């Protein structure tokens, strides 16, 4: 058995269960009937549970789901896309340790008390438990990074029939292609959110205005993109907000071809799929001409462009595997 699997699937779960059970077994006879589980603003306990209730609640809410996530990661990481295992293992270890830690903290702080109403404000213990759980989560996440993962088969396939134009560039020549692609209806939706925010702000509804303005951000992000193809690769950025959506370094590009995008074949409108998680992604703003980019590890990126020919020609001119060499007969 792989050491990493052993740590995630056996050692951390054993530790979590030990943390949950041992303090209780040790101080069981010195506990009051009920344990304080909630405190009001001034630190006075205002709700309680039996020890069994506490175990059931924390167990079902945090420990069991957390351990399941950890063990599933240890067992099945090979069938998960690359970023899934560290995420699942980290989150699972965090919530399982959190649940076990809260049980341990509650039990230990109630030892030798005659009633739950005497319990002290546990903020220090709770902070300690959260920090400890976060530390265990980070460790699990780092351990899980080294597990084998699935090289996903791309959702979207190759484009064998597409032509791959190529720009002839002399050594000292540099070419950049830039196009802004927009979906007017997404932009209009975002703009209507902003208009609504301004309107309610005019009526003094500040909180609502802020909520509306923030809701407009993701909408505007996906409404308009600037696509740039040059010697460094292909980049798409939100035209309004400037954030980068996708950057494909030129070293990763095998070839770029032209295709006719039928949105339903590529998952619909907007940004579909994910290069990291699904091995393929499509940025579809409308029906019609687009560029199909094939990466050297078989991943696929599709983007709708008015002038896909120029964009593809620049990428092919700089691509790691020159298109012409594919046709070379040996």
């Amino acid at each position, binding site marked *: 058995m792989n050491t990493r699997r052993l740590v995630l699937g056996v050692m951390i779960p054993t530790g979590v269960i030990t943390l949950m059970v041992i303090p209780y077994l040790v101080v069981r006879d010195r506990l009051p009937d009920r344990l304080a589980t909630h405190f009001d603003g001034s630190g006075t306990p205002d709700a309680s549970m039996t020890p069994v209730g506490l175990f059931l609640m924390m167990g079902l809410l945090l420990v069991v789901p957390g351990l399941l996530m950890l063990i599933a990661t240890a067992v099945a990481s090979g069938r998960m896309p690359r970023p899934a295992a560290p995420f699942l293992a980290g989150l699972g270890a965090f919530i399982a340790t959190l649940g076990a830690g809260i049980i341990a903290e509650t039990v230990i702080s109630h030892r030798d008390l005659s009633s739950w109403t005497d319990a002290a404000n546990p903020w220090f213990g709770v902070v300690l438990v959260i920090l400890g759980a976060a530390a265990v989560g980070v460790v699990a996440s780092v351990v899980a990074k080294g597990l084998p993962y699935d090289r996903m088969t791309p959702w979207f396939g190759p484009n064998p029939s597409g032509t791959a134009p190529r720009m002839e560039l*002399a*050594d*000292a*020549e*540099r*070419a*950049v*292609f*830039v*196009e*802004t692609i927009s979906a007017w209806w997404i932009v209009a939706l975002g703009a209507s959110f902003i208009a609504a925010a301004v309107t309610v702000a005019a009526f003094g509804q500040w909180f609502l205005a802020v909520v509306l303005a923030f809701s407009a951000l993701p909408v505007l992000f996906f409404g308009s993109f*600037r696509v*740039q193809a*040059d*010697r*460094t690769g292909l*980049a798409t*950025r939100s*035209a309004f907000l*400037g954030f980068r959506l996708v950057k494909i370094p030129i070293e990763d590009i095998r070839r770029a071809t032209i295709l006719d995008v039928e949105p339903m074949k590529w998952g619909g409108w907007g940004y579909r799929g994910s290069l990291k998680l699904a091995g393929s992604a499509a940025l579809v703003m409308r029906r019609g001409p687009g560029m199909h980019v094939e990466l050297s590890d078989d991943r696929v990126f599709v983007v709708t462009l008015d*002038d896909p020919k*120029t964009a593809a020609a*620049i990428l092919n001119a700089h691509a790691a595997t020159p298109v012409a060499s594919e046709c070379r007969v040996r």
Partner: protein
Amino acid sequence: MLLKIDHSAKQPLHEQLAGQIRAAIVSGELKPGDKLPPARELASGLDVNVHTLLRALKTLKEEGLVDMRRGRGTAVTAAAPRVGRLAELADELVDEAKRSGMSKQQVLSLVEAKL
């Protein structure tokens, strides 16, 4: 929009850049109100210094083709399509005049006579 420059050409890079962007405006690829990409991104793609690109943009601004506002980027002006063609013709006129050895005064009076 396609911008293409030649680092080995005699013409200075900033002139090539201004010419390329102007051509995109004249051909209608860049329309009034369109924003140019951030100078940093364009410059790195073209392998030129940001200041070289800014110098080209300054030329275009002086010709009335673009508007540069701090924090809001560079946008094509409403008058750009008309002025752009004139700026191109003026470039050609000056080039031709230089080749035939005309002085600045001669070129100016030539244009003045036509007005």
